[in-house]
């Protein structure tokens, strides 16, 4: 006979406990995880569904999202599902040890539908900044472009002199011509006078005397005019000598102006590669900073004290961590530079009490599409000084066609191809050291120059010389701290391209200088020669006119004396002066 009054209460109790362990553990665990996770990580954690089975020692989660503390509308990570197999023996000893687990559909940086902000934090991602500016190279290129574009013709002394002479000589000659014309007119007036003398009786000496005086007066002006012509001729010759000396000074001036300063090859490397690598370094720095903050926060979880009393630890030497993920398989994807990288890997030894565990956290991730990437990480918080190591190896990273530098000034277009990228970063406490290597072979470099000074010759020469470069190598040395890292960029591209650019620019500048010199020479010579010829012709003509005038005067004088009935031999002795002087 069954004593139901004894059995039923106890049976109902057992059933109640069973139901509690079966159905209540899940919601309770979900609440605990969310509450603890948000407290530790400082951002919103949401779990769509959690199923826990103590009998199977398994926990399954679906649609887990952990918000980014620095960006409320993005997730730090999210996953489609996660399954953890618990070690039941450790669970009975109040230790949560996941001996095997898997996380599927892990995504970093996905978008959120609602804000994930819990409390205002001062944690911000390291600001994106241009680490590699290459400002010296920018200034150098600006200076060079000014040299090539600027019109130096106006600065040349010889050109200026030639222009001045071109203005002055005609004016002076016109003045001289005006005086000569005036003199010629006077000679013509003597002609008219001589014509009138034909009608005058020979006894009218007054008129004849006046005529001869007029002739003498005109004749006296002639040497002065001839002297002026000669003086102008001398001045022209002196001016030509002056222009010659000015040309020499102009040549020296152009050599000075077109001298090319040496280009800092390291700075030029930053100018070419700075933009591309700044964005990559910002990405790496952001994730390292987030990882370090996350692990620091998790490390602080070990310091959580109970609400009442203190927990006494027994047997510290053999103590094990309260929470441990022995091995978790991971798969998911992340997006970088607009490309989705599916990855898979595993994580081992994750715990908030690494000193008790005695093993570092190991992370290994690999991607195969679109390119193979392997990431090996080790986070060692066992000692007093945390040590983190990260090695990334990308044997064949697809590189699209891209422009290095600045197309508005000077840039180099790189042909698409594949590159090998290897990176090692060590973080000891907050001291960061590391090296990043980049190499792309079989590249085709095409210069892209601003149209202002991109002459066909210059572009052609530059392109031919750049063909000699068939690979790009870059090394970035990393030092400093995690909050203030220093990145030193070295590359074969900068020094080689700088050398080619300097050489080609020197040629171009020399060519340009010679062009300017020739241009100035032509301008000056043309102007001076033209002037010389013009003035020489006019000068000759003027001298002929003066000579003709002189001859006319002599003839007119003879005619007057003949009209007066005196012998012509008296012209030379001039006894007529006394005879012809007024009484």
């Amino acid at each position, binding site marked *: 006979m069954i004593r139901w009054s004894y059995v039923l209460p*106890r049976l109902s109790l057992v059933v109640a406990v069973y139901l509690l362990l079966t159905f209540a553990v899940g919601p309770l665990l979900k609440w605990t995880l969310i509450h603890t996770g948000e407290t530790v990580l400082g951002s919103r954690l949401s779990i769509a569904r959690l199923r826990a089975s103590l009998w199977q020692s398994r926990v399954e989660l679906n649609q887990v999202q952990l918000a980014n503390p620095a960006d409320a509308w993005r997730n730090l990570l999210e996953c489609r599902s996660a399954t953890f197999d618990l070690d039941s023996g450790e669970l009975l000893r109040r230790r949560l040890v996941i001996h095997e687990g898997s996380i599927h559909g892990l995504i970093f940086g996905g978008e959120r539908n609602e804000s994930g902000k819990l409390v205002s934090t001062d944690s911000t991602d390291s600001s994106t900044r241009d680490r590699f500016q290459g400002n010296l190279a920018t200034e150098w290129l600006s200076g060079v472009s000014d040299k090539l574009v600027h019109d130096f013709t106006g600065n040349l002394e010889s050109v200026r002199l030639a222009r001045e002479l071109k203005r002055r000589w005609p004016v002076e000659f016109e003045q001289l011509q005006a005086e000569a014309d005036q003199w010629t007119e006077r000679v013509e007036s003597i002609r008219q006078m001589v014509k009138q003398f034909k009608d005058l009786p020979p006894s009218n000496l007054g008129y004849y005397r006046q005529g001869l005086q007029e002739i003498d007066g005109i004749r006296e002006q002639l040497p002065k005019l001839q002297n002026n012509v000669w003086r102008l001729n001398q001045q022209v010759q002196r001016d030509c000598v002056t222009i010659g000396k000015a040309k020499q000074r102009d040549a020296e001036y152009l050599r000075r102006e077109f001298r090319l300063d040496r280009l800092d090859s390291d700075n030029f490397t930053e100018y070419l590669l700075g933009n591309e690598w700044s964005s990559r370094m910002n990405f790496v720095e952001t994730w390292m900073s987030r990882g370090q903050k996350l692990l620091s926060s998790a490390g602080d979880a070990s310091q959580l004290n109970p609400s009442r009393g*203190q927990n006494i630890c027994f047997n510290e030497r053999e103590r094990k961590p309260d929470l441990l993920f022995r091995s978790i398989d991971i798969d998911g994807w992340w997006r970088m530079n607009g490309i989705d990288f599916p990855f898979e890997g595993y994580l081992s030894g994750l715990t908030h009490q690494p000193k008790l565990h005695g093993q570092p956290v190991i992370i290994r991730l690999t991607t195969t599409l679109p390119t193979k990437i392997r990431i090996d990480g080790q986070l060692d918080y066992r000692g007093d000084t945390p040590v983190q190591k990260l090695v990334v190896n990308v044997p064949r990273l697809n590189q699209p066609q891209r422009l290095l530098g600045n197309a508005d000034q000077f840039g180099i277009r790189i042909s698409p191809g594949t590159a090998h990228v290897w990176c090692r970063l060590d973080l000891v406490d907050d001291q960061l050291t590391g090296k990043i290597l980049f190499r792309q072979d079989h590249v085709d470099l095409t210069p892209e120059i601003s149209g202002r000074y991109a002459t066909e010759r210059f572009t052609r020469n530059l392109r031919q010389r750049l063909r000699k470069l068939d690979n790009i190598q870059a090394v970035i040395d990393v030092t400093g701290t995690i909050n203030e890292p220093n990145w030193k960029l070295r590359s074969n591209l900068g020094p080689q391209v700088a050398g080619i650019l300097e050489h080609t620019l020197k040629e171009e500048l020399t060519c340009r200088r010679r062009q300017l010199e020739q241009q100035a020479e032509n301008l000056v010579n043309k102007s001076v020669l033209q002037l010389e010829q013009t003035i020489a012709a006019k000068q000759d003509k003027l001298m002929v006119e003066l000579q003709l005038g002189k001859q006319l005067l002599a003839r007119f004088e003879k005619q007057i004396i003949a009209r007066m009935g005196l012998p012509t031999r008296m012209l030379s002795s001039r006894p007529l002066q006394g005879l012809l002087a007024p009484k």
Partner: protein
Amino acid sequence: MIGWLIKNALHIRSFAISRDTPRQLAWGLALGVLLGLVPKGNLCAVVISTFILATRVNFATGMLSATVFSLLGPFADPLTQPIGQALLSHNRLEPLWVYLYDLPLVPWTAFNNTAVMGNLVLGLAMLYPSYRLSLRWFRRTRFPTEKQPRNETVAQPEELHSRR
């Protein structure tokens, strides 16, 4: 308001003590004191609660005293935590604690917590005195009109000695 509270308290009292013997009532109260003192959220409290439910002690007095002593428990921490600290840090007891802590389920009792250990010790120390004092009181306060329980009568001192 006060009248309403008194009326409901008397109602609860009459309901609580209507069918159980003074011994059941006293044990219920004593176990309730123990449960109230021990901090909750660990296996200790669950075991004590289960014991109260699994035995024939009076559940109502147990829960009532547990509630009252849960409110008073934190005030006893300055007394109980040093007791717990002393016991858990004792060198001679350390091997015992290490052994116990390595057993399955035992860590869930949180006995390594100074407040849990201290209040447990205090609760256990107060268990029998609570029972004796409350037993006397329950015997004195039984109303004559209350029904006698089916399986137990009010024992006379001579009968108690003979049963032993």
